Structure formats: C-alpha cells, structure tokens
C-alpha cells in the first residue's frame, strides 16, 4: 500500500499512444492518491528540456538510484544502513513518515541516454533536467517476411 504506483492508470493506453509528448503527459497524470504523497513530483516544460523535481525527504544522495531502461527513467530510494547518523532508539508514539524502499518511473523516450540527464539533490529534493530529443524522424517499418 505504501509503495507508489509505478505506472499511471492508463499505462497500456500510453504505451501505444501516438507522440512522445502525448506519452509524456499521460504518464504524468497519475492521481495523487496512488502515490500516497510519496515521491511527489513536479514536471515543467522549460523549452528545450523538462525539469523534474521530486520530494525525497530524509534520504541522502547515496540512498538514491536512477536507471534508464527501455525509455523509462526509474528513480528509487532506499535507506542505506551504513550512513546511519540517525538515532532510531525509542518507540514510536506516532508514525506517518515512510522510510522504506520506494520507486517511481517516468517515460522519457528511448532517445535519452544517461549522459543527457543532469541531476542534483538538495534538502530532500531531487532535481533532474531531461533534454527534449526528437524521435528519429520516420521509423522504418519492419515487415515480417512471409515465406
């Protein structure tokens, strides 16, 4: 229940959607309640790139991972034991914060490579700049040879 959903409700529709932009926007339409307020994300179109800002309070830089695979950018966070400067003694009187593993994916297109994305992390907010890249003009249709 606490893990954020990875894909939007209309994921299948998105996948077979038309243009890059349509897919991108559809992806970003995940209803808030599906993410339980975790990894709340802003995305803005800055002209030649997309600016993504994701809230990850309490995590440190070393706890974060970002992968690119099949056109999806996946950001995951998990507390690492070794950078424990926290004191976790005492019993909980109230617990609302989620400090376990979480991940979230965004469709960014298959033309984006690792080197294109710039990222920074400060005060619990991950900022990423994802350049817009034109999809290759016309994709060759690959016909299946019928023998």
């Amino acid at each position, binding site marked *: 229940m606490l893990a954020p959903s990875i894909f939007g409700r209309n994921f299948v529709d998105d996948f077979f959607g038309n243009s890059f932009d349509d897919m*991108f*926007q559809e992806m*970003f*339409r995940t209803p*808030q309640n599906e*993410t339980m*307020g975790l990894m*709340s*994300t*802003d*995305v*803005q*179109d*800055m*002209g030649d790139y*997309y*600016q993504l*800002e994701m*809230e*990850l*309070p*309490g*995590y*440190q830089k070393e706890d974060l991972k970002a992968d690119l695979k099949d056109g999806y950018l996946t950001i995951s966070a998990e507390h690492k034991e070794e950078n424990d400067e926290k*004191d*976790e*003694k*005492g*019993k*909980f*009187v*109230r*617990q*609302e*914060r*989620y400090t376990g593993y979480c991940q979230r994916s965004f469709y960014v297109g298959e033309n984006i490579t690792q080197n294109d994305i710039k990222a920074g992390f*400060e*005060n*619990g*907010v991950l900022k990423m700049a994802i350049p817009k890249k034109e999809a290759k003009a016309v994709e060759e249709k690959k016909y299946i040879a019928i023998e």
Partner: protein
Amino acid sequence: MKATGKRYPMKSDIRERDDRFVLEIDLPGFDKENIKAYIQNGYLIVSALRERGKEKENHKWIRQERYYGNYQRSFYIGTDISEEDLKATYRFGVLKIQIPKKAKKTEQHQGKIQIA
C-alpha cells in the same frame, strides 16, 4: 503528545525515549530561514513557507504534485516546556526537534527556536 493538523503534507514521526521525545517532520526543499518553530499555550507550532521560484512562472506545467505556500502544524507538548528546552536541526529535508520530558526551570517567554 498530541498532534493536530492535516495528515499530509507535513508527515511527522514522534519517538519516545527515556528523557525526551524526538519529533521529525518531512519538509523537503525548504530554506532553513523559512522554517519557524515556536511555543504558544502549550503547543509547539511549526510553520514553513515555500514559494515557487520566479524562474518557474512562465513555463508550462506538465505535472504538479508538490505544494507551495504556507505549511503549519501544531503539537501539544504541555505548558512546562519553553523554547530554551528544545533543540532543532534541519537536515536532508527533515526538521528534527528534541523535546525533553522535564523542563529546566526557566522563565517562560515567547521566542523563536533556533534551527541549527
């Protein structure tokens, strides 16, 4: 220790230790200067302001889930505790306040809690 306020967005943990309570509040992406904490009538009040940067105004939003503006939440801590008893730090987007169970004997007056 009771807490009032919305469950979201200032998600908070409170842990009880032998001599104190440890309060941790998620406040990602704030400037330390924009977080204020003070005591009023036995309530510890934490308020924070986050404004949307000017550079963002003229660009198209594709998705907006984060909240900008004023945040406030209060926690009942009793009337014996004053600002001097509390220690606060802000790290990695989390405000952490240590609240002793027993107050030092000091005169009560209203002041702001230093956030280190």
